[in-house]
């Protein structure tokens, strides 16, 4: 191994950036290289499907840090650089230009790539996916020229984009193969609320509706053909049907993968010199009680911190209760915990007024809280779940009962 070989991080997304930043914050003084495929410095993705398209945020405000930060902190940021392979025996990362980088520790923060729509016509001009800054800039140009927008997939990305398109006064149709919106990530009660919200804002939502073809003229999209025979006119199609963990580098060099790169509670892969963090990983999560893979900012950031701590010799296992958020219109959704498999839901607050939380219980134990425009409930719920505290269903349902008192009593 080269003397002076340091930490090499593959991936300039949330997890890769966080690993580099946390290493320096923890006082790690060795060399750090951050290898990013995109040309733009590491940036926040959440605004891409939200405020960015409304022109509320310019691209420079998306950056986690100014370029100067990396130079000042001795982080060798290599933009527009693709990694092509890992030589585990020689501890070198191979790059597309034929060169290679020696590492003492390698961190794979390769993220996920969009799932492609497997139907004829998906390659027409005007069919877009939404993951990167380049994606959203292409959507922005197209959006200025069209009136009819079709969104395929009613997950977070699709619905956030639908809300933005409605704000820009486009005709918006959302096509979802499942029976309800956000079926993969939220409980039915919440799907119902968001379905109503989007309809009230004029979105035509069609669930149980598969897509069989994208049709066009002169190479440009004109309509989406549904399985039931209906055609939806569209000058722009945005596809948000999920992502696939980017495990190519890990697979090719023989690291254990199973729906993601398999890591332990410290982000270690099956090779002790190689770590992984973020959307590309799967691991046994103590709160879930099983192996899971999360696609979220919280997971990417916290796993990045975990990996940095392990490399810096200050290991601290990852055990954060998962949390997520989404902004659609003036609805701020914040979720903590995992509601799948719960058997009781308690409403707190005013659903009709659009300010409420849903407390999800499994066998009498609080497992998840979804908050709509009740951010304080979300913060208290994070503390409750982290401490293993369960308010009674009666307490949860009483909006006057102060959750903070339970948290404070337990920490006193």
């Amino acid at each position, binding site marked *: 191994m080269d003397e002076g070989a340091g930490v090499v991080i593959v991936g300039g997304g949330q997890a890769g950036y966080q690993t580099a930043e946390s290493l320096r914050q923890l006082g790690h003084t060795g060399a750090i290289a951050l290898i990013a495929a995109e040309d733009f410095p590491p940036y926040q993705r959440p605004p891409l499907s939200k405020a960015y398209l409304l022109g509320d945020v310019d691209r420079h405000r998306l950056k986690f840090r100014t370029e100067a930060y990396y130079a000042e902190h001795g982080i060798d940021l290599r933009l527009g650089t693709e990694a092509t392979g890992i030589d585990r025996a020689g501890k070198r990362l191979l790059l597309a230009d034929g060169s290679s980088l020696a590492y003492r520790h390698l961190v794979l923060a390769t993220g996920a790539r969009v799932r492609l729509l497997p139907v004829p016509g998906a390659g027409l001009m005007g069919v877009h996916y939404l993951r990167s800054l380049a994606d959203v800039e292409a959507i922005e140009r197209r959006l200025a020229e069209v009136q009819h927008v079709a969104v395929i997939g009613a997950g977070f990305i699709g619905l956030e984009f639908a809300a933005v398109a409605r704000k820009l006064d486009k005709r918006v149709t959302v096509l979802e193969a499942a029976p309800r919106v956000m079926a993969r990530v939220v409980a039915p009660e919440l799907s119902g609320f968001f379905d109503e919200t989007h309809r009230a804002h004029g979105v035509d939502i069609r669930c149980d509706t598969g897509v069989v073809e994208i049709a066009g003229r002169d190479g440009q999209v004109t309509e989406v053909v549904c399985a039931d025979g209906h055609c939806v006119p569209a000058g722009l199609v945005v596809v948000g049907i999920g992502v696939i963990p980017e495990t190519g580098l890990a697979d090719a060099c023989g690291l254990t993968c199973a729906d993601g790169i398999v890591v332990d509670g410290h982000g270690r892969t099956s090779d002790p010199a190689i770590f992984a963090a973020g959307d590309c990983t799967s691991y046994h999560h103590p709160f879930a009680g099983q192996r899971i893979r999360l696609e979220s900012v*919280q997971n990417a950031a916290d796993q990045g911190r975990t990996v940095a701590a392990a490399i810096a010799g200050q290991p601290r296992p990852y055990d954060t209760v998962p949390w997520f958020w989404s902004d659609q219109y003036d609805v701020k959704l914040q979720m903590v915990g995992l509601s799948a498999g719960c058997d009781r839901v308690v409403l707190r607050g005013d659903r009709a007024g659009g300010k409420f939380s849903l407390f999800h219980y499994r066998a009498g134990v609080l497992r998840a809280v979804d908050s709509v425009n009740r951010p304080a409930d979300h913060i208290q719920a994070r503390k409750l779940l982290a401490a293993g505290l369960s308010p009674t269903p009666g307490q949860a349902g009483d909006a006057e009962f102060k959750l903070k008192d339970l948290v404070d009593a337990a920490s006193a």
Partner: protein
Amino acid sequence: MPKVTYIEFDGTERHVELPAGWSLMQGATLNGVDGIEGECGGSCGCATCHVYVDEAFLDKLEPPSETEEEMLECTAAPREANSRLSCQIKADPRIDGIVVRLPETQT
């Protein structure tokens, strides 16, 4: 461009010039000021960008929204009369020179 002074918990002063319209949270994170997390990205949803605003500037700010009021009840460090969330304070010539102190902890 409006100037902002951040006083980190250990007393270190950081001077940053912010384009008008940027939030004090963004100014801090982008420039690596220690002690502001902003983990929700600036949507008033996490209370990890808590600051104590210098009294001389407090009256020049728009009062906190209902949501910010709720979130200020959730800060990790004690809420004081001059507590605000820095994602909700936008740089503006009227607050040129504003000074904010950072709390001991955000989480």
